[in-house]
């Protein structure tokens, strides 16, 4: 087999050294009852060519050649060629976690650059080497805030990604960390700050908001921070659309930023792997979970990097660790690092401006449901038909429409969440507008009569 680099004669020589006649004898000490007495019920191995054929066939059963207006936490952004060029290098792809600093300076240096860029983007003092994804960064941020404040209650905005909130509830359930939700304003689509005030108490350790929120709206982060801080809680600001940070004011009033970097050259890949970030203020460093890279020197006095502050982590602290997390998403974080490098200071801004322009072009042809300010996503109410019906009509035009919101927000069952990025073509947006307008036309008997 091509992944087993031994000839029969080499295997024979090695068995001789081990003093056994066959490889099976090496398992002779296993109790009879635990041994599998039959071959695995899996087909025999296949060639490279057949493997490619298998996956191409599966890919053909997915969406191919469709324009898409789905966002909702996973965005279609162009991936510069350099990204795969870099991450395909075996020295990055096939390296282990950089515990051995002398032979891992490549990964360590890059993570240090990653941490720096995440701080520059978010306005925080320190960022870790990445988390699994945005959804799991949220409970880690909540746990961190609870540790830092000694207060166990968590308040999360309903405008935070619904699946992130589900993950938070799963993690929180058995840690004596009650989670309550507060609402969004029915007209603006942004935080209902009065409802936040109502829910606040002296036992709340974390207030979690997302900006731009799940509806694409820019949240009043500063006002939320004031309310949280007044009662001694920390504010966690979540983001799912990292490109927005090319334009938006960083959440400097927050205590913790927790987000998803999928927008930075990480293909949608049916939901993962992505990379989450966690960044915070200097004073909370030791409450932070996850790997951290720090600068130091080697014995010759040269600048060097190494993993540091490991006394927070599970392999040292075991059950007293800040988290059970072991891995980070190094290779995915590298994709994001290359992406941030390629676009750089001017590029990320220009990219964000293009996203803003495209989304506002599309929104301009439709009636947005909320009055708040939005970046590249917004909600529209579908009149006369269900959002699902509109999407069916769009599919016939080779377009995947927006996300019907009823599944997550019963009160928005008549609405869909649309996203436009720099990848959205004007012609496709015009079709979306036309089909949605068609729905409105059909619903209006008066107009029908006029047309007749």
């Amino acid at each position, binding site marked *: 087999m091509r992944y087993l680099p031994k000839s029969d004669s080499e295997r024979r020589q090695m068995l001789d050294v081990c003093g056994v006649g066959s490889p099976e004898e090496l398992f002779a000490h296993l109790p009879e009852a635990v041994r599998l007495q039959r071959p*695995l019920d899996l087909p025999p191995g296949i060639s490279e060519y057949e493997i490619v054929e298998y996956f191409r066939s599966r890919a053909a059963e997915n969406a191919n050649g469709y324009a898409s207006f789905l966002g909702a936490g996973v965005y279609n952004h162009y991936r510069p060629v350099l990204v795969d060029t870099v991450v395909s290098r075996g020295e990055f792809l096939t390296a282990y976690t950089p515990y051995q600093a002398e032979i891992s300076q490549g990964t360590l240096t*890059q993570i240090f650059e990653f941490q720096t860029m995440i701080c520059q983007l978010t306005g925080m003092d320190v960022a870790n080497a990445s988390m699994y994804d945005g959804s799991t960064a949220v409970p880690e941020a909540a746990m961190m805030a609870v540790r830092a404040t000694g207060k166990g209650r968590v308040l999360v905005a309903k405008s935070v990604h619904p699946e992130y909130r589900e993950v938070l509830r799963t993690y929180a359930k058995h840690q004596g960390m009650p989670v309550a939700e507060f609402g969004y304003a029915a007209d603006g689509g942004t935080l209902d700050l009065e409802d936040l005030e109502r829910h606040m108490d002296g036992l709340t350790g974390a207030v979690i908001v997302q900006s731009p929120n799940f509806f694409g709206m820019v949240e009043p982060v500063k006002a939320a921070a004031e309310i949280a801080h007044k009662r001694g809680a920390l504010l966690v600001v979540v983001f799912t659309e990292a490109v927005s940070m090319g334009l938006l004011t960083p959440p400097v009033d927050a205590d913790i930023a927790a987000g998803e970097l999928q927008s930075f050259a990480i293909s949608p890949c049916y939901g993962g792997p992505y990379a989450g970030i966690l960044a915070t203020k200097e004073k909370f460093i030791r409450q932070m979970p996850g790997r951290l890279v720090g600068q130091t020197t080697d014995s010759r006095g040269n600048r060097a990097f190494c993993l540091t502050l490991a006394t927070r982590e*599970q392999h040292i602290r075991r059950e007293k660790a800040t988290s059970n997390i072991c891995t980070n998403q190094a290779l995915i974080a590298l994709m994001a690092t290359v992406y941030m490098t390629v676009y750089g200071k001017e590029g990320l801004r220009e990219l964000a401006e293009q996203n803003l322009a495209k989304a506002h072009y599309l929104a301009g042809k439709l009636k947005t449901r909320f009055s708040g300010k939005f970046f590249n996503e917004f909600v529209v109410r579908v009149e006369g038909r269900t959002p699902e019906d509109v999407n069916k009509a769009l599919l016939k035009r080779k377009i995947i429409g927006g996300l019907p919101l009823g599944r997550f927000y019963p009160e928005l069952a008549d609405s869909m969440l649309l996203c436009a990025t720099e990848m959205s073509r004007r012609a496709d947006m015009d079709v979306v507008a036309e089909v949605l307008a068609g729905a409105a036309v059909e619903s209006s008997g008066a107009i029908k009569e006029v047309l007749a």
Partner: protein
Amino acid sequence: MIKKVTTHLSQNEALLFERSSPGKKGYQLPELDVPAVDAAEALGADNVRAEIPGFPEVSEVEAIRHFTRLSTWNYAIDHGMYPLGSCTMKYNPRINELVARIEGLAWAHPYAPESLCQGAMEVMARMEAALAEITGMDAVTLQPAAGAHGELTGILLIRALLEKKGNPRKKILIPDSAHGTNPATAAIAGYAVQNIRSSETGLLDVGALEKMVDQDVAALMVTNPNTLGVFEDHIMQAAEILHRKGALLYMDGANMNALVGMARPGDFGVDVMHLNLHKTFSTPHGGGGPGAGPVAVKKALEPFLPTPRLKRVGKKWAYDYKRKQSIGRVKAYYGNFGVLVRALAYILAHGGPGLRNATMDAVLNAVYIRKQLEPYFDLPYSSPNMHEVVFSDDRQARLGVRTGDIAKRLIDYGFHPYTVSFPLIVHGALMIEPTETEGKLEIDQFVEAMISIAKEVETDPEMVKNAPYHTRTSRVDEVTAARKPVLRWKG
């Protein structure tokens, strides 16, 4: 005499921020085909930042050189053997990378209509079935993002089942040889951790277990083969004790590479386990992730698995979200799909018989190393080992050289170090796992290097203690890094 490596020129490289100059660009966007929008107007002036202070500004040429130069400072499997015990650093087949990038898979949006995701769902269903067959379990969730995340999922499942039976119980038993993630996970799932000491042979002490399991014990978390690379031969007895007293058996699948095709946890009493696809199933470590940590369970735990679950409706795949007893979600969407694709490509490449052959070669390599290094290093536990072998530095420590020093010297010989000082039950552990993807030549060079270092310890211990000598970066001052943390570039 070092045969495997020699020195060569290594390029120096500044940090991105030190290379930046205002106005340098590595990108070009297409002409905007819609009217430009004034950001301050659209977003509100307060919501728009002036700039991203300090963000890099480099050209495309500089960007590729930067990352290429950095890459050459890494050791990687593509360079040679990685004898890291319990980490299963095996070859990462490149076909896995190619298929994961096929457009219809890589660009599948998790919220696309199910009718347009049938291929992705079929891949996941096939993966679930393959892992269920390999582990001998009844159901599999692919949602957890990594091993430790799988552990958390598994322990939450146990809690959910016990809760339904009326009492979630209070404690998880964990052997002293376990990975640190095990106790950290138990704590997050709301359980107290009680350590269980290994027997003199380094195995689970079944007598002690019998005494410790009471109405407060929810489960035992055990790694099998354990972190010494030894199969827990009383595992069925341990399962019987736990089940008799209403507790469950959790298996950490970190060492599954020793068992695939030879023995199945589901057949020896395990109720729930996780797998590390970046270990046993060849997906790349990538310098520390991404991983994937599927969890396999027996039927009794199936109702509690994370939502959604795949289900067959006629000839189509669909998601079932209406699962009242589910522990909920542990991650957004469905799992690290891209990692699942790679792992399935690996399973397809080997096939059933091939996976078994891989396991046999993995164990052969480890036993072969043990036989040849036994005369030079102390072996604290003499039970037959499987895919890895753990020595102690006792003999070398008498001359003042510790396992960490030997590991650093191994770098000079062209190898990544083995796992240092783990498991904790071995004094000064040298934990070596070659995996099946090392050939005889590479292993012979490794053995020669280890023997050569053992001799150097006798003749020149001071020299060994200051290794490595041939790397571009010499020993790194980790103490100062922790004492005065510099965690970002500040210019």
